[in-house]
């Protein structure tokens, strides 16, 4: 069944992009695998990341981190530390002004509680900031950190979310000046809470033939961007603060720094150089303030770079959650009601506490049609590391629960998991029933589906992996084989919130400078945005010189998050390029008129083709000729234009993932044999980059499914804080991987594009869990599914089966 055929009942006038598929044949630059604009320099080792410069007189900063999960700082004695040769300054809560803010790195006003300070007289997790030392070299700073004496009043700590929100729990944010939104109740350790719904869930559940309800659980996860958080600050010749920072959000960083350092935005310049991966971790304004503070106080350049261990213990993480999924379904497999309850752990601070958990419902629930939906969410503070933005942004947590649950429902009804999903999945023209209720800290704009290739994702994914083979696995030996699948959707930007801008100008050789605020953090957005400009201008990609991003030079962009860059920033670029095309035509017409040859020079008669403005009679002027004329000869002006874009629409990309696994019942080991990800991201601007996003996003989450977790001692100290002890997937672990790009055309996107970067992270958790469930006949409702858990469950099942032969099916 094709996407168009599914549109029964949809508004016939509603543009689903089906009529625009012919565009695929006309693209010259987009939808092509161009050489990425930055790849060669990076392969040569010439890419200059934040830490690849050294400034004369630069100070190095080291942080003293809290050894306690919860304590009040009564006094700090720095006298011995100050005597370490090379130490220049030491800052802490007794000499830095207390201003509450959120480190979340979101737009203004942030939908996260203001519960953090540069230095706080209270520490709330092992790894919280206590004091920083700036010294002539890193070694001196590290030695001095150890000599700082802190008098702590150690407080009782709480590590479990259920205990944290129970009466009598230690209050983590007892300070009177912290503020929040949407259910913020710090006296009960609640960072955010909400209850929203659509329709009458009680009535809908009453109609159901089967009601199923289970709890699921997902762990901490660390971004593991290979480049750690790092920032270098200095004062320029105008006494302005320059911050060169590994950030996804230079403009938000500038705004937030201005507030907490109490200097004007105008006096700050944030430069985003090459970034070595972000994945949401660098959306957080995590360390930007520290070198900035040191520089403002000492008037010297300052550098602060996290170690890998600090990344694990003191940077941000994926919020762990417990989730209760309840589904009402008719005997024929029609879903009628869905209810999701989330109890999330945001750790010591509430950055993204509301919005990540909002997306846990917002990305998942609307994927399947039902009469009624309910979402109940509580995000608790605990004395553990802090949750934050992490690629997928609540989606992976929710999809694990939902898509494991859907398999359980299908299993109980005796339906094929793929057919059960197809029966209930949303169609073009469907309204998102929760869009209004789940806006970012305010009411969201209504959402209605245009392009939707999810059924084709299911069909082509199933064919690629050989879905029917799952019925013939013998599984009579100790090694059991299984296959699982899931359906996914995500979003493209934050509707009604995210704005991006681009600036484009013509040079005298017919090349263009494209200045974007969008932050390429390794995603390939510099290439993609340059492709969009080139396509619109009708020039080869090589004619576009892109620069991103610098708050002094490039226009504003919300930053690299929320799967927004291609869709939002890309449209801004397209608008800028369309404006430049208009100016090129005007300038060419004027040149022809000036030369006494005005025939066919009306703007609607001219076209931009292959680096020329062309007249109906075939006469043409090259962009270079036009630029030289406008620079030096006639009608003198700079051809340049800008584009800004904000969208009230948030078209979801769709996907279906399939996994085939082997589980060794004797060791509990899982071997991933095959993985297929079929993706509808609209028009893939750079197909191989879309594959790369899919492969990388999925591989990260294979670790989430099987190996990655935070392990704490009884006092909240992280035990596995190295790459050696925190097991992520390597080249030896990744299975045979196939990405299928399903073609659709999104009418609201630039050249038909939607997002692609986050949706792959939603899939592997449930897909692999479903495959293991088929292999073993055991349902794991908690990630990661480790060999220990598998072996334990297998032995329990064996014991049960031997006691009660009648239950052998379980």
């Amino acid at each position, binding site marked *: 069944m094709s996407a168009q055929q599914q549109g029964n009942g949809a508004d016939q006038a509603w543009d689903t992009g089906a009529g625009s598929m012919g565009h695929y044949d006309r693209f010259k630059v987009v939808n092509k695998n161009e050489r990425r604009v930055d790849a060669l320099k990076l392969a040569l080792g010439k890419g200059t990341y934040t830490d690849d410069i050294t400034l004369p007189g630069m100070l190095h900063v080291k942080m003293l981190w809290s050894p306690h999960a919860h304590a009040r700082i009564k006094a700090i004695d720095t006298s011995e530390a100050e005597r370490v040769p090379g130490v220049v300054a030491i800052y802490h809560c007794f000499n830095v002004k207390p201003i509450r803010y959120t480190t979340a790195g979101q737009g203004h006003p942030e939908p996260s509680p203001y519960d953090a300070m540069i230095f706080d007289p209270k520490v709330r997790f092992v790894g919280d900031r206590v004091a920083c030392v700036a010294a002539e070299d890193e070694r001196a700073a590290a030695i001095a950190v150890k000599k700082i004496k802190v008098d702590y009043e150690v407080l009782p700590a709480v590590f479990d979310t259920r205990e944290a929100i129970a009466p009598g729990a230690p209050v983590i944010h007892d300070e009177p000046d912290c503020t929040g939104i949407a259910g913020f109740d710090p006296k009960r350790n609640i960072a955010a809470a909400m209850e929203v719904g659509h329709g009458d869930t009680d009535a809908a559940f009453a109609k159901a033939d089967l009601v199923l309800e289970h709890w699921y659980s997902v762990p901490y996860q660390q971004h593991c961007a290979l480049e750690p958080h790092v920032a270098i600050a200095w004062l320029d010749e105008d006494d302005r603060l320059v911050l060169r920072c590994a950030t996804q959000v230079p403009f938000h960083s500038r705004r937030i720094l201005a507030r907490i350092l109490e200097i004007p935005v105008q006096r700050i310049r944030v430069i985003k150089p090459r970034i070595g991966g972000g994945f949401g971790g660098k959306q957080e304004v995590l360390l930007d303030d520290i070198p900035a503070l040191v520089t403002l106080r000492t008037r010297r350049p300052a550098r602060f770079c996290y170690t890998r261990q600090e990344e694990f213990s003191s940077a941000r993480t994926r919020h762990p959650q417990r989730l209760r999924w309840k589904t009402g379904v008719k005997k024929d497999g029609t879903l009628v009601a869905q209810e999701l309850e989330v109890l999330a752990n945001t750790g010591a601070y509430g950055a993204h506490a509301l919005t990540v958990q909002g997306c846990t419902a917002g990305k998942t629930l609307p994927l399947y049609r039902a009469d009624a939906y309910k979402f109940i969410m509580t995000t608790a503070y605990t004395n553990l590391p802090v949750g934050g933005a992490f690629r997928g942004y609540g989606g992976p947590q929710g999809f694990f629960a939902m898509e494991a649950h859907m398999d359980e429902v299908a299993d109980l009804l005796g339906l094929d998991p793929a057919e059960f999903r197809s029966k209930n999945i949303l169609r073009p023209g469907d309204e998102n029933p929760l869009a209004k209720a789940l806006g970012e800290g305010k009411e969201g704009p209504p959402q209605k589906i245009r392009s939707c290739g999810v059924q084709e994702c299911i069909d082509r994914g199933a064919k690629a992996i050989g879905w029917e083979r799952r019925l013939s696995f013998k599984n009579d030996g100790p090694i059991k084989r299984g296959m699982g699948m899931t359906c996914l959707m995500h979003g493209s930007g934050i509707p009604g919130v995210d704005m991006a801008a681009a600036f484009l100008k013509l040079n005298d050789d017919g090349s263009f400078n494209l200045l974007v605020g969008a932050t390429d953090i390794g995603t390939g957005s510099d290439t993609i945005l340059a492709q969009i400009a080139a396509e619109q201008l009708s020039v080869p990609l090589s004619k576009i010189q892109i620069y991103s991003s610098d708050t002094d030079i490039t226009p504003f962009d919300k930053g690299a998050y929320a799967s927004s860059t291609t869709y939002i920033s890309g449209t801004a670029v397209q608008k800028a390029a369309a404006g430049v095309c208009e100016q090129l035509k005007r300038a060419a017409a004027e040149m022809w008129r000036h030369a006494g040859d005005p025939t066919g020079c009306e703007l609607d008669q001219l076209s931009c083709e292959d680096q020329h403005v062309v007249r109906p009679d075939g006469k043409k002027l090259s962009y270079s000729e036009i630029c030289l004329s406008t620079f030096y000869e006639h009608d003198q002006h700079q051809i340049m234009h800008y584009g800004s874009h904000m969208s009230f629409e948030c078209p979801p990309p769709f996907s279906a993932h399939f996994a085939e696994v082997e589980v060794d019942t004797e060791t509990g080991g899982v071997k991933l044999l095959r993985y297929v990800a079929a993706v509808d991201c609209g028009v893939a601007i750079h197909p191989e980059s879309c594959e790369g996003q*899919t492969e990388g996003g999925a591989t990260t989450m294979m670790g989430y499914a099987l190996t990655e977790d935070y392990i704490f001692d009884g006092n909240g100290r992280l035990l596995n804080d190295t790459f050696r002890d925190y097991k992520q997937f390597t080249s030896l672990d990744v299975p045979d991987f196939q990405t299928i790009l399903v073609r659709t055309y999104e009418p609201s996107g630039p050249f038909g594009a939607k997002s692609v970067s986050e949706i792959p992270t939603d899939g592997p958790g449930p897909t692999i869990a479903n495959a293991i469930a088929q292999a073993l006949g055991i349902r794991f409702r908690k990630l990661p599914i480790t060999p220990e858990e598998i072996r334990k469950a297998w032995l329990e099942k064996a014991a049960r089966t031997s006691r009660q032969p009648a239950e052998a099916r379980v």
Partner: protein
Amino acid sequence: MKVRLTLNGEPATLTCAPWEFLTEALRRHGLIGTKRGCETGDCGACSVLLDGEEVASCILLAAQADGHAVTTVEGLGGFERPHPIQEAFVDATAVQCGYCTPGMVIATQALLAQNPAPTERDARECLAGHLCRCTGYVKPIAAVLQAAERCRAGDVAKTGGRS
């Protein structure tokens, strides 16, 4: 102290403290292609060749390189003449954020010098010590195989660059 070595084919002297690791000494010498990812020898971003063998420069004391030949990613090729391995990583779209790429390029050079016709399994093992959170390794594995093909065609693996 002074460390005398052959660096990217040329005699060089690195000035460093006795406790300093090679990564720091190289980076201070301007060779920023050698990256810091973990400083515990786990991630592969700092890989260089020491007498043709791949080593983690973040856990090798700079002093230990005294009298040896060190090749960094800059030693394999430049803008004027990129090494076929570097070209292969670009053309296979194996470069995303690029932070792990120099280490992977070095690892590929070490592999191809020993084994000019690696299998897919060899390529996976070659990259096993190189963590990458962007690519999922699919395209880097393809890049290693593509690099082998190009190097065989041009027979430059053994003599590649100035190493």
